[in-house]
């Protein structure tokens, strides 16, 4: 496979669009993807598994008088394309008509010509990638009180994407991404407490991964929790570290998608222009953010990626739109280029790209802790997907972290407790936002500093 956006994929899309029209579609959009991935797991210095793969597929969306159908397949032969298009047309005939459902028009604005692939990506041999992953594991194992490391993972992907539609939408691009992550196990030894800690790094090339930092983070996170106990139930200041803040930001981003709002499944419906958060919070969706791995020249409908401020100084300023929700909203509302898709197997749907919590000014992590004196630091939450009610915004999730002394020092580790509130109250209760943001692959692709929530309920003993 070449590093250039495959002309072949564009040809596949072109054939699919005309085949779908032949099969009876009023309009058609074809999305083709060709990816090559490499992944490896390391355990105790040895390669546990090594996977090399190539994957190609086609997804076809068709419109017939306001009825939408979708089909996908891995067979890109002429016969495979024909069958997929026939499937999509048949699917559309089953759907009910929706007057807002028409094919997206191409944008007049040019798509970004930024590069989403890193040249150094292509210089790395599998051997070097394995060495990197082994180094990550070594660093973690050398950490204080680290007993073992569960598999250390390295994974990367080179993907080519093309899109074409009968309305004239067209585009193609190449993207690269690399990840490394591991879970370290710390132990007090001899039947004492054991704790795990996650370390991770990501970028558009293995060149950007810092093995020392990734391994050390896992070791430090695990060891810092040793001897954890259950805190007393109470209400207190809570600092969310960036990995935790990102998970919540991702949830909120989903609820600010116009699809959730229009279908009455968002606690933020009907709040446009109103204050919904503390005025120090600004939350932005940026589909072209340089550091964000969700960045691309255009969205799943070919709309040039852009920047949308969702919450500005605490005020709800916009929802995320694709072409359907924008049309449904009416009154000159345009797509914010937030049609996303999880590969060729799924039809486009509205969602965040890169979410960015604007950092505060001159507020280091240590300063946040001082402000949160007597409260708790949350370093991990679990059960987020089962613990948050996306309609009401209420949540209760499992948490681990550290107590914060009255003076703002990190004190005893704590686990087996819950934090509970609702997203709306939590947003209003934010009292400080740190100035040291970090990209986190949780909750989507999110850049956020640590966040201090003035008051939250802790459920422990």
């Amino acid at each position, binding site marked *: 496979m070449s590093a250039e956006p495959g002309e072949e994929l564009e040809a596949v899309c072109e054939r699919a669009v005309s085949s779908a029209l032949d099969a009876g579609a009023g309009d058609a959009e074809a999305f083709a993807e060709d990816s090559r991935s490499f992944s490896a797991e390391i355990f105790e210095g040895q390669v546990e598994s090594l996977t090399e*793969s190539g994957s190609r597929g086609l997804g076809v969306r068709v419109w017939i008088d306001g009825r939408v159908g979708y089909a996908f397949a891995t067979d890109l032969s002429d016969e495979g394309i024909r069958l997929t298009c026939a499937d999509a047309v048949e699917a559309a005939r089953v759907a009910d008509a929706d007057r807002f459902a028409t094919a997206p028009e191409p944008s007049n604005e040019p798509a970004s010509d930024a590069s989403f692939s890193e040249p150094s990506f292509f210089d790395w041999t599998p051997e070097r990638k394995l060495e990197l992953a082994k180094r990550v594991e070594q660093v973690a194992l050398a950490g204080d009180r680290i007993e073992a490391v569960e598999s250390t993972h390295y994974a990367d992907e080179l993907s080519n994407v093309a899109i074409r539609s009968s309305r004239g939408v067209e585009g193609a691009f190449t993207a690269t991404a690399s990840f490394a992550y591991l879970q370290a196990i710390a132990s007090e030894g001899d039947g004492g407490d054991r704790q795990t800690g996650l370390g991770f790094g990501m970028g558009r090339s293995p060149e950007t991964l810092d093995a020392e930092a990734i391994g050390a983070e896992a070791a430090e996170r695990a060891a810092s929790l040793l001897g954890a106990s259950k805190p007393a139930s109470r209400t207190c200041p809570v600092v969310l570290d960036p990995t935790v803040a990102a998970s919540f930001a991702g949830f909120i981003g989903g609820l600010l998608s116009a699809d959730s709002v229009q279908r009455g499944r968002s606690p933020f419906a009907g709040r446009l222009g109103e204050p919904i958060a503390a005025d120090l919070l600004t939350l932005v969706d940026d589909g072209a953010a340089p550091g964000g791995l969700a960045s691309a020249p255009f969205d799943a409908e070919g709309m040039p990626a852009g920047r949308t401020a969702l919450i500005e100084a605490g005020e709800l300023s916009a929802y995320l739109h694709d072409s359907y929700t924008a049309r449904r909203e009416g009154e000159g509302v345009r797509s914010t280029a937030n049609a996303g898709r999880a590969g060729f197997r799924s039809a486009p749907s509205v969602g965040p790209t890169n979410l960015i919590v604007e950092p505060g000014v001159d507020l280091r992590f240590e300063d946040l802790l001082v402000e949160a004196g007597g409260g708790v630091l949350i370093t991990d939450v679990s059960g987020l997907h089962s613990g948050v009610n996306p309609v009401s915004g209420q949540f209760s999730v499992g948490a681990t972290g550290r107590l914060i002394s009255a003076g703002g020092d990190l004190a005893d580790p704590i686990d087996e407790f*819950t934090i509970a509130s609702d997203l709306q109250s939590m947003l209003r209760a934010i009292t400080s936002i740190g100035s040291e943001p970090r990209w986190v692959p949780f909750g989507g692709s999110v850049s956020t500093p640590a966040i201090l929530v003035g008051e939250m309920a802790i459920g422990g003993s």
Partner: protein
Amino acid sequence: MASDDPLVPSELAERVIARALRNGGDWAELFCEQRSSFGLSIDESRVEGVTRGRDLGAGVRVVSGETSYFAHVDGLAEADLERAADAASAALSGERTEPTALSALVRGEPQPIETDPADVTADRKADLLRACDERARAAGAEITQASASYSEARRRITVANSLGTFASDDRLRTRLGVQAVAARDDRVETGFETRGAHRGFELLADGAAEATADAAGRAAVTMLGADPAPAGTMPVVVGDGFGGVLFHEMTGHGVEADHVQKGASVYAGMIGEQVADPSLVAYDDGRLPHEWGTEGTDDEGTPTQRTPIIEGGRLTGLLYDLIRARKDGVASTANGRRQSFRHLPIPRMTNTYIAPSSDTTPAALIGDVSRGFYAVSFAGGQVDPTTGDFVFGVSEGYLIENGEVTRPCRGATLIGNCLAALRAIDGVANDFDVRTGFCGKGGQSVPVGVGQGHVRIAELTVGGTSV
């Protein structure tokens, strides 16, 4: 509907396996898959999201010592399979290994299908969703929204390996999910109900689909009247069916052999030990008729079986795939499963459950509790197998006061540690039900059955907002 032919002929499979072993390796495997899926949903009383998909591909694995080399390709043509074999063996540099000739094809025992969904028109499926929409909305004037989704997937696999295994399996899963939203003043609550099985369209016939919608609507309306959940430590009665996700998380994952072999499980080194009340019995059973996690063979071609996990309160065994079984010198328990041909098999549960008792009724379990919590259904759960810490989000829960189920509670989470919670189980009722779960592990999602009768835990932390 069962097709008796393997996805690739044995001669081709043998050639591919031999090619995969030409640079050495202890053994090699070819896994072929054909998947065809159809789904649609209804929302705002409009049928939408109609999607049909077709996947065809193969994965080749070469195992050398502790290392697995894996490659996968789309398509099952000889050239595709050769490409996968070459990619999987590229990193090896040794003497050719001679594979064993393939045995006669073993077919996984099929689940009888009455009505193949492929023979039911898409319009009929759309009508079914319209009926669900209507029924969920009829649950009360406070229902503001309803949505439902239907999906069917047929997955045929053929697996061959250099030890002579040659097996095919044919799985068909059908599932319906219904969600209702109810609102009163500022309160918004949801109800969710599913019905799914390794079964044909008959699963949803005779009012079964409508009953699922009724239950979703009822749950949403009930939760409107819910108070904030209590926070604190108390006896907890867990409901049947989806309540089994508790055992799935707190014990099932911990006895998957990969976690145990890495020492990353609280159950490591505890085989044969008393981990629960002597009356407790639990299984993983890939053969339970028609259940969601049921298959004829696993994704390594091993015929599925019932594996005891706990008997007489003692931990009896682990869940193995071929690689982890080989490491421990035992036979696979047919738990080698994978999401698709794009994934390596790893030890996974099938249908995992606490076996029902013979006499205790659910009412009796609840009757003994003076103040406690009744968790009827979970939105999901998560466990860290290394520490045993778990957390579950309760989607439908009630207070128990003086032996009676009283007020509904919202926003509850159950939190605890596996070993302690398992030991604290002091009652299992005589009812039994298995429900549909999607279990995520190592980036792979597979269908699993979760089940049990009502179970009581003498003491567990309930995390709620009412401090």
